[in-house]
């Protein structure tokens, strides 16, 4: 037996009503060694996810029978399996709602295979780490010691205000994931401040000024236009 045969395959559930996109996803994912189960409606998809466990779900939001969002919400009622949403351009409101309803990430159609696979791997990696809380996180030249509440850049300590630190902590604990404006504002400033986007703009800029090598072309704190921010591991 060779090593590849003994490695348990990662199984991905694809829920997409468009046969063409469904075939395309299946080919792309299978060529990378994933085992793919496909469903062409939200109903079938829900039934299949309930039947057996999958490591990841790719869900198209434009399903004919039930809206993709309600499928997502139903999935989230009983499992934390990572869900990647497929969406179209100009659908920011939909993306935000999907992320706030528990989607892990989104890919916009037309997608390129590199981007899709990278998002998939990142989501699987985050799910794999699970709830293990590491006290010290390292991102390039940044070190964040959550236990000691200490942040250093190139070994030099960086002074952060309480709000700046709270925001940074939220970002690094969800590294690689898109966080919506609403989510960030609720967590850092409180539920009654969830529409005060201006706070977020100012504080993200301050974090960029203090932590980015070039604040004018950020490598850590990336803007997802109209949706939120993503803290990227460079």
């Amino acid at each position, binding site marked *: 037996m060779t090593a590849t045969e003994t490695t348990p395959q990662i199984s991905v559930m694809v829920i997409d009503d*468009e046969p*063409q996109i469904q075939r*395309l996803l299946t080919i792309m994912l299978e060529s990378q060694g994933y085992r793919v189960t496909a469903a062409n409606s939200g109903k079938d998809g829900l039934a299949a996810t309930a039947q057996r466990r999958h490591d990841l779900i790719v869900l198209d939001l434009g399903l004919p029978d039930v809206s993709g969002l309600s499928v997502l919400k139903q999935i989230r009622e009983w499992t934390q399996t990572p869900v990647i949403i497929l969406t179209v351009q100009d659908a920011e409101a939909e993306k935000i709602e999907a992320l706030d309803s528990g989607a892990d990430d989104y890919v916009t159609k037309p997608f390129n*295979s590199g981007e899709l696979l990278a998002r998939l791997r990142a989501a699987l990696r985050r799910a794999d780490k699970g709830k293990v809380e590491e006290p010290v996180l390292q991102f390039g030249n940044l070190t964040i010691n959550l236990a000691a509440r200490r942040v250093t850049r190139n070994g030099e300590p960086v002074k952060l*205000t309480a709000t700046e630190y709270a925001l940074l902590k939220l970002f690094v604990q969800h590294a690689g994931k898109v966080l919506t404006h609403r989510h960030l504002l609720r967590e850092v400033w409180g539920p009654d401040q969830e529409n005060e*986007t201006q706070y977020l703009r100012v504080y993200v800029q301050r974090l960029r000024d203090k932590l980015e090598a070039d604040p*004018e072309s950020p490598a850590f704190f990336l*803007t997802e236009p*109209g949706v939120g921010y993503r803290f990227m591991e460079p």
Partner: protein
Amino acid sequence: MSLIENRLTSLVGRPWRQYVLAFGLVCLVSTFDLWFQKWTGYQALALVYLLAVVLLALVVGRGATFFGATLSALGWNFLFVPPRFSFHVDNLYDKIMLTTYFVVALTVGTLTARLRTQHETEMKTKLLQESERLGRTLLNSVSHELRTPIAAIISAANGLHSSGALAPAQEQLVTEIESAGARLNRVVQSLLSAARLQAGQLKPKLDWCDVRDVVRAALRESSKVMAGHPTETKIAPGLRLVRMDSVLMQQALGNLLTNAAIHTPPKTAVEISARMEGTDLLLEVSDRGPGLPDREMERVFDLFHRAPNARPGGTGLGLAIVKGFIEVQGGRVHAANRAGGGAVFSIFLPASESPNLHEETA
């Protein structure tokens, strides 16, 4: 009831017909009353007239109702109130009766007519909403039907490309498919945006934005089209947050960048700048290309308009979309030639309001 009402309304649709109907109805009721008065007093006949006025108000406009009410008051007075066959009224009791009748007929008639108008307006609004909803559904489904195959083409070509198993000639062919797909995608996207703008379906989502973020996103999105054009970004230091729809603004800037890339020779530098101009935010995309002919200045933002000397590759949609996207946000656009050659496209966005910032005390 509503069917009869509709029939009657269409029958008496034109104003003069409404007056004829009012006149006819009053004559009819008068004839009936002349026959009916044998069994009753003249006061009770007023109620029959009143009933006619209410019925009239159900089918005709306010003017004809007013006319009918007046005519019936006169008719009752002339035909039945003693002394009969004269407009003269003798006793106080009849004078009060007549005045009261007139006021009641007018009030009831006007109120009924107003109620009907209200009902009609509601129906019209409902119909309008329904047709808007239908239009939106249609646009969404067309959008879905166009975008899905394009997405499949682009993604499949891209998958083939990145499989790394292609001979050089095949690789070139796949690259052609990819770039043609991307171009088709841009055109469809533009058509859909233009359709949404024309249908008035675009509702901007205004929120505080960092202009630097928006400019960066626009540059990133148009990086493929802009390849071969060096870009320079000039953002005024300390530029404050401005309320805008970041997605629309990013697409507007992206369209201006694409426009500059298409209409200038390769390697022409493109500059993007942002600063405050009075209470407006001023964003400019400028190039050192051939510039615009004088008589084109006013028309470059028109839908489907293309300058006669324009290079191939444009659709005549890009700048119209820029104008639409900026105007729904309350801003305006402007095109001009630069001193020293080249064109400059400006976006002005009102920005007198400044954000309420809650500062930390720590």
